[in-house]
């Protein structure tokens, strides 16, 4: 039986969040630089420059990239050989609370959708779990902004609408979102499963590394075609036109019912903050695990 200490979880969640709000992954920065070089619209180019400059300022001044430091989304992959004698979700939420209260991050979570009373520490996070073989615990974490989340969509298409139906729905989502989700975007598309599964697939898609090529050729072709067509929409950075509407499209699929073709589109804004850690379980006997 292997364990990971509760305090290791708390510390890692806290530090991952505090880093992620001011530093984007290098691959995202590289994508902005490449897009900037190719961009033909002067205003769009100018906005991409400002996005890159903002990243430098956030880093050097230790200040969040964006004032919306998000609702925390967490995907936890749990090695089957691990044993927990504490509540894993509670530990993650303690890490979230510490990051937001001690790290000067904005608390953007309300207790009830209708009473709108702030929870004051940005908890609870939305946590998804999966089991994996082995003794590792992998935590993917993303402080997800409200602006881009609000422009995300889900539709139960009819199977007859097929591939073109999916493409149309994705393009409509990006067009009607315009500048609101803060493009350039990472577009996560979930197809198949059922109502909630396709949303989950789309959310997981935006957390994939940008150079991660899907194995499934159907999904890969869709990613390539969508990327091309989205960047021809002339939505552009902040919706003001240009060649750079998205820097990546990621499609995840799952088997589905003969009667259904669910599709979900989750939009990630240019403040594409995320982090991940792999923790390895240790044999611990009778140790104080708290």
């Amino acid at each position, binding site marked *: 039986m292997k364990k990971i200490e509760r305090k290791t979880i708390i510390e890692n969640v806290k530090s991952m969040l505090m880093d992620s709000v001011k530093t984007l992954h290098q691959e995202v920065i590289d994508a902005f630089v490449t897009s900037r070089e190719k961009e033909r619209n002067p205003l769009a180019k100018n906005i991409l420059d400002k996005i890159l400059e903002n990243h430098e300022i956030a880093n050097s001044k230790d200040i*969040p990239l964006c004032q919306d430091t998000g609702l925390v989304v967490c995907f936890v992959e749990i090695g089957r050989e691990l044993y927990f004698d504490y509540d894993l979700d509670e530990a993650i939420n303690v890490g979230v609370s510490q990051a937001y209260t001690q790290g000067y991050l*904005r608390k953007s979570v309300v207790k009830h959708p209708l009473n709108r009373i702030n929870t004051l520490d940005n908890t609870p996070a939305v946590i998804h779990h999966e089991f994996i073989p082995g003794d590792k615990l992998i935590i993917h974490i993303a402080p997800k902004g409200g602006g881009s989340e*609000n422009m995300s969509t889900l539709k139960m298409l009819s199977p007859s609408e097929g591939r073109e139906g999916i493409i149309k729905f994705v393009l409509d989502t990006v067009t009607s979102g315009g500048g609101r989700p*803060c493009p350039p975007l990472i577009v996560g598309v979930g197809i198949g499963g059922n109502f909630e599964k396709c949303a989950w697939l789309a959310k997981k898609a935006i957390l994939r590394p940008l150079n991660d090529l899907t194995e499934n050729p159907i999904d890969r072709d869709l990613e390539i075609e969508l990327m091309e067509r989205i960047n021809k929409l002339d939505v552009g950075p902040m919706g003001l036109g240009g060649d750079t509407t998205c820097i990546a499209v990621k499609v995840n699929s799952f088997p589905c019912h003969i009667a259904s073709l669910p599709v979900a589109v989750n939009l990630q804004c240019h403040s594409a903050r995320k982090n991940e850690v792999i923790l390895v379980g240790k044999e611990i006997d009778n140790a104080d695990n708290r």
Partner: protein
Amino acid sequence: MEKKLTTPITDSQIRTLQIGDEVLITGYIYTARDAAHKKLVEAIENNEELPFDIKDQVIYYVGPTPAKPGQIIGSCGPTSSYRMDKYSPYLMEKGLKVMIGKGDRTIEFNDVVKHYSGLYLLAIGGIGAKLSECVVENELIAYPELQSEAIRKLKVIDFPAIVAIDYQGNSIFNK
């Protein structure tokens, strides 16, 4: 070339601006997002006085991150403006002239801006670290219970924005 704007904003300043113009704002501006707008409109409906004189003023749709010790303000980029469309006409009726936020607004809002000879400016979303460098004073003036959504009076120098709806109701989003 950017055009300089100084608050409070006069009609003559507004009339020189066209959609797509880049502006740099200097002077005092007030922050308010959804929750503060709700309270301001409730105050108007109850015939109560507003917490600041809104005439010819600028409202910036922002809820900043908390300032660290030694900082004036945290990250402070714009939030989406369309959520304020329901409330803004009440405030413009009381004299509000300029709104700064991100994204488009409902199409009917173009006429609201025209009716009051106002101005809707876009700030670039997601660059709150950079925009924080324009803020030289930050004072919480109303609704502290709203936390990041409280109303703050900010003094800004050369705050960059783009004209999105001009005083004639032309919008950069429906060119």
